[in-house]
């Protein structure tokens, strides 16, 4: 069996149909102008030419999921006695995320550290993660605002992918990354990829060249002084409207909330995404809120990605540089600009600018 | 002013026994600037025994005409005969308030009726749409001898939820219209008393008694003329007077005119124009004193001057009719 594969463009749909035989295949589909990961079906319009508006994170980590359903049950003999019946549906079908971007796939590795590589893995996430095959499509050119190379990724970075496709003139060059990924090379539509290896490598290198690194360094060094300076944050993000677009579109944001919903003695426990940009995120029962202002919340978002998470996980940055938070920000807040201002070199520039102020 | 246009549903009486009502109405409407549009291929209104037998059928007869009118330029129809009017309005109201009734009726019709027609009696059109001012404006002749009571009969204003016009117990429209002509109208308590006409054949004695009451009350209040707006009323009060006189020992000789005939007289039409010759009790003696308004005014002014009441002269000019009445009293 060859190490790489090649999928002619005209066979893409056949290939997806094949995959869909024993899994739900999520692929970027066009709805109006919006590209969204949807379960593949014939009537959908596929769109591979730009990253989806929202990443495929909800496939493995749904925006809201029922952890379990509960029902209070009375003892028929003694109505004073009551028990709670819990039901959890842990059935997960086989799933394929198809044509996600490398950054989207890399995002899952950030979740894995939190949800799986721990003493108490999260069963819901783990099961979905294990049941999902991720086939990515390397980026041919950068999208507005994206900066994967600045955070250790790249347009053809393979971390998190099970297999990666690279678009060539007549088809897609396929590189398996994991064992799971290798299996797809067996499918009948896949041809031998070795004749295309060189072209694919060239395309990948060219794409890498085109992506700008806003930090101008591979080793980000955040200035602790600046990071802990409230005035910096107040100045930097006074325009932020504190919505959740950045976090909900982020392939690496994983904060969640757990709520119970109940009526007439029945209900469910729901885990749903939460966003540190929301006031309610840190609102305490006492009505005290340790992060009442927008800049404090914004600081947390940047801090989580570039300071706290790396501290905990051997320097791994919890940002994949997909650029969605910049592209879709209602007020065009640019996290890459803020982070580069936070670096020690950025700090120097700041100081020169700041001294000019009154 | 743009000419007002109405569809005109004359009904069968006005083609026959009440031809003079039709003639006088057309003349008056012309004078008042109202165009009466003929209704093509109109048929019986249904005010036949039909409505005592089958409501749907009776309504269908009426609705056929309404459906025709609905296709005309104007959706308002004027109806001189109160019987026709009642039936048309009843069908309209029934069909616009009860969907299933509408469907039942329309099932009998070739062209369905959608409920867009407004039916008004000719009196209502003259009283409400044209108005007293316009009525008075066109008067050319004074009729100083006329002392009128208005008799409305039983169905012109009733039942009130169908007629939707004037007061069912004490109607005033005809009184006001005739007053506007400068003609004396007397208060009359039997405006809506039953004349019994419907029983003219089977219960003649009863009808004679009822008619007698109506006529004698008119005489009692000092009237010398009865104005009506219904072919059946006219026929009953006029034609039956002799019969009443014979059976009840009275000696009535009081003309019963359509209000449109009275209007015609005030507008200068000749008794022949108005087909007054069709009256059984003639009205010639009342019309003899007819005189153009200008002359009448001058005459009255002269009388007043002679009576040496210069102070009153002013008022007389403004309200010659009032003064005339006051002096007669």
């Amino acid at each position, binding site marked *: 069996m060859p190490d790489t594969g090649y999928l002619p463009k005209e066979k893409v749909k056949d290939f997806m149909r094949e995959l869909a035989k024993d899994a739900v295949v999520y692929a970027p589909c066009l709805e109006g102008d919006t590209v969204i990961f949807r379960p593949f079906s014939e009537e959908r319009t596929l769109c591979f030419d730009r990253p989806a508006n929202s990443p495929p994170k909800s496939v493995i980590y749904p925006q809201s999921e029922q952890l379990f359903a509960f029902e*209070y049950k*009375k003892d028929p003999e003694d*109505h*004073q006695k*009551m028990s709670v019946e819990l039901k959890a549906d842990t059935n997960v079908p086989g799933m394929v995320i198809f044509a996600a971007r490398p950054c989207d796939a890399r995002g899952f590795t950030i979740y894995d550290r939190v949800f799986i590589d721990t003493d108490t893995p999260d069963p819901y996430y783990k099961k979905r993660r294990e049941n999902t095959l991720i086939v990515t499509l390397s980026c041919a050119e950068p999208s507005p605002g994206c900066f994967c190379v600045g955070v250790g990724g790249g347009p053809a970075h393979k971390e998190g992918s099970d297999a990666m496709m690279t678009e060539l003139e007549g088809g897609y060059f396929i590189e398996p990354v994991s064992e799971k990924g290798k299996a797809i090379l067996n499918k009948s539509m896949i041809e031998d990829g070795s004749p295309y290896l060189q072209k694919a490598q060239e395309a990948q290198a060219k794409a890498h060249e085109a992506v700008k690194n806003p930090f101008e360094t591979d080793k980000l060094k955040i200035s602790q002084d600046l990071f802990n300076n409230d005035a910096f944050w107040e100045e930097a993000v006074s325009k932020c409207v504190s919505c959740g677009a950045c976090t909900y579109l982020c392939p690496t944001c994983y904060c969640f909330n757990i709520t119970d919903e109940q*009526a*007439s*003695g029945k209900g469910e426990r729901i885990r749903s995404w939460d966003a540190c940009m929301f006031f309610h995120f840190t609102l305490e029962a006492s*009505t005290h809120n340790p992060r009442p202002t927008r800049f404090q919340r914004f600081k947390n978002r940047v801090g989580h990605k570039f300071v706290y998470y790396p501290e905990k996980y051997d320097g791994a940055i919890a940002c994949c540089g997909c650029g969605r938070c910049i592209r879709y920000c209602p007020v065009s807040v640019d996290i890459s600009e803020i982070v580069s201002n936070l670096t020690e070199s950025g700090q120097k520039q700041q100081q020169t600018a700041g001294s000019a102020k009154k | 002013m743009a000419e007002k246009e109405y569809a005109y549903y004359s009904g069968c009486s006005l083609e026959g026994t009440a031809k003079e009502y039709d003639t006088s109405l057309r003349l008056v409407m012309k004078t008042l600037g109202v165009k009466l549009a003929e209704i093509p291929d109109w048929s019986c209104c249904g005010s036949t025994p039909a409505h005592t037998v089958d409501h749907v059928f009776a309504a269908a007869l009426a609705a056929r005409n309404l459906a025709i009118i609905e296709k005309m330029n104007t959706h308002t129809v004027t109806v001189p005969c109160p019987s026709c009017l009642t039936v048309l309005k009843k069908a309209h109201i029934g069909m616009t308030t009860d969907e299933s009734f509408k469907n039942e009726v329309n099932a009998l019709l070739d062209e369905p009726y959608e409920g867009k027609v407004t039916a008004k009696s000719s009196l209502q059109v003259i009283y409400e749409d044209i108005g007293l001012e316009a009525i008075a404006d066109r008067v050319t002749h004074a009729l100083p001898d006329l002392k009128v009571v208005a008799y409305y009969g039983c169905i012109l204003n009733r039942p009130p939820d169908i007629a939707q016009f004037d*007061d*069912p*117990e*004490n109607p005033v429209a005809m009184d006001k219209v005739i007053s506007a002509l400068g003609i004396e109208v007397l*208060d009359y*308590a*039997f405006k809506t008393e039953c004349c019994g006409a419907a029983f003219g054949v089977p219960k003649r004695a009863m009808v004679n008694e009822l008619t007698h009451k109506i006529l004698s*009350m008119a005489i*009692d209040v000092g009237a010398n003329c009865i104005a009506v707006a219904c072919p059946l009323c006219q026929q009953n009060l006029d034609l039956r007077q002799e019969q009443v006189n014979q059976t009840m020992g009275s000696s009535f000789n009081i003309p019963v005119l359509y209000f449109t005939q009275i209007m015609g007289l005030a507008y200068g039409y000749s008794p022949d124009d108005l087909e007054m010759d069709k009256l059984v009790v003639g009205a010639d003696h009342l019309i003899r004193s007819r005189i153009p308004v200008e002359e009448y005014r001058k005459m009255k002014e002269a009388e007043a001057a002679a009576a040496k009441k210069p102070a009153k002269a002013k008022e007389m000019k403004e309200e010659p009719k009032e003064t005339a009445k006051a002096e007669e009293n």
Partner: protein
Amino acid sequence: MRVGVFICHCGNNIAGTVDVARVAAEMRKLPGVVYATNYMYTCSEPGQEEIKQAIRKEGLDRIVVAACSPRMHENTFRKTIEKAGLNRYFLEMANIREHISWIGEDKELNTNKAIEAVKMAVAKVMNNKPLYSSSFKVNKRVLVIGGGVAGMQAALDCADGGLDVVLVEKSPSIGGMMSRLDKTFPTIDCSICILGPKMVDVVQHEKIKLYAYSEIDEIKGYVGNYQIKIRKKATYVDWSKCTGCGACMEKCPTRNAYDHFNFGVATTRAINIPFPQAIPKKAKIDPEFCRQFTKGKCGVCAKICPTGAINYEMKDEIVAEDVGAIIVATGYGLFDLDKFPEYGAGRYPDVITGIQYERILNASGPTSGHILRPSDQTEPKTVVFVSCAGSRDKSLGVPYCSNFCCMYIAKQAILTKDHIPDSQSYVFYMDIRSNGKGYDEFTRRAQEEYGAKYIRGRVAKIYPKGKKMVVRGADTLLGTQVEVEADLVVLATAVISAPGAAGMAEKLHISYDTFGFYVESHPKLRPVETNTSGVYLAGACQGPKDIPASVGQGSAAASKVLSLFSKDMLESDPAIAQVNINACVGCLKCVKTCPFQAIKEEVLRNGRKVAKVIETVCAGCGVCTSTCPCGAIQLQHFTDNQLLAEVNAICQS
């Protein structure tokens, strides 16, 4: 949470069409419900005792009673649970009688509906919070609106009980309708002779402040603390100077002013004192007729007045009074003749109304008590009375009985015979309603001793014939048409609500029925209370009433006020709006929409603007809660979460 549910059979009222045992059994399955039972009469003493015991024994902390309407017994059960140590607001009622058992025919559907209704109540009660009343001071003054016999009685009783009374009467004299009557049934004693002394008592009572010829402009506030604005209408006579000598009235050249007191039976002067016994006995000018006003010159009264009281420049004056309770005694109105075209609609002078005839009979009336018919001032020999002129007639919008016409017709028939011994009275009637003490005997006397001929039937038409009025009607007992040639016809016109009754109700925030009569709290058990606490009803403003009933209600209303004022402090209803200052964003939209100006802006120490509810002013309507976009202001006991719990109980089951 330990909820107890009590399902009432209400005898067979509920149990007849609802399977109450099944409802209770279903409730026992409900989480949170630890106790559910059904009982024959939950509102009875033992029924309430059972609730109390269950609370103690089962440790219940929330109670649901499924029974009749909460409008009926909510207070009963609130007190019950309070006695057992629970906060009264830990009660919810499910109305399974008026809203279920009495209106649904299918027992299965009813039972299911009852189960849902109780579930809704359980869902709500689990969201209930304990609420505590606060107390506030009461202004122990009372406003009485209307100086008729009911209002006077109420004012006197309150004043005798030691309260300060403000009595407002819109006409120039107190006395109301009763002061117009000649005699009263069934005793035939002189009306003004028994009313006159009461009128004097009112004006002389040091505790009563009388505003005659005044109207209520504005009512603000709440029970215990009302702010009233009274409009003293311009009389153009300085009443502090007027001695009531009547010289002005004698000399006034305008003789054709409409005589309101005599209902137009006679005319009066443009400056007049309404009647000899008027209280206050002061003159007032009717500018509609006064030449000084209509023609701009005259001034006779000003010249003649010995005390110089006339002031043509006088304007309405607004005075403010603060009171703690209000008694409404605004009386009634009467149908006009123009409602009856078949009776001539007022065209015939000899067809008059009962109250007009009352004035003709009255010794101090325009004919000095001689019965003379209006058209030619001759004595009528045949008088026809038509009862139910408008009353009990749906087509005229008066389907109800006017209550006292049967009686006054009998009285007037008797008086007619007394005045004119050779007269004959006829009475057309539908039914004779004489259900008071001595009343039936009285109507019989009219027939048997005074020879009044009673004809059972309605009058179809009245028309003139020469000098007579012909009354044509049906005699339903004989089954014939009858015609009576009368000299005078008296119509017992329908009693209707007082003119302006609806407007007054709106000022008072009390409800009125289709006919404009004010609605009492409960037709049987709270007949003088209204749904607005601190506002009470007396007399015919609540419905047609004769004198004894009006007087009785006047006293009853007074006793209600006296017992209300027996405490120095009143408890406020805690079911009012409350602001969560943490959630409030200070947009103050609630301030804009509050119908009571009960919300104001408050600035917190950190400079943040928030809304603040003035507890005593808030009436608990909840308009603010549905205005507030962020749910920061919540009407207690009807919070969003409480109502949503009910919605969810219905929709998400």
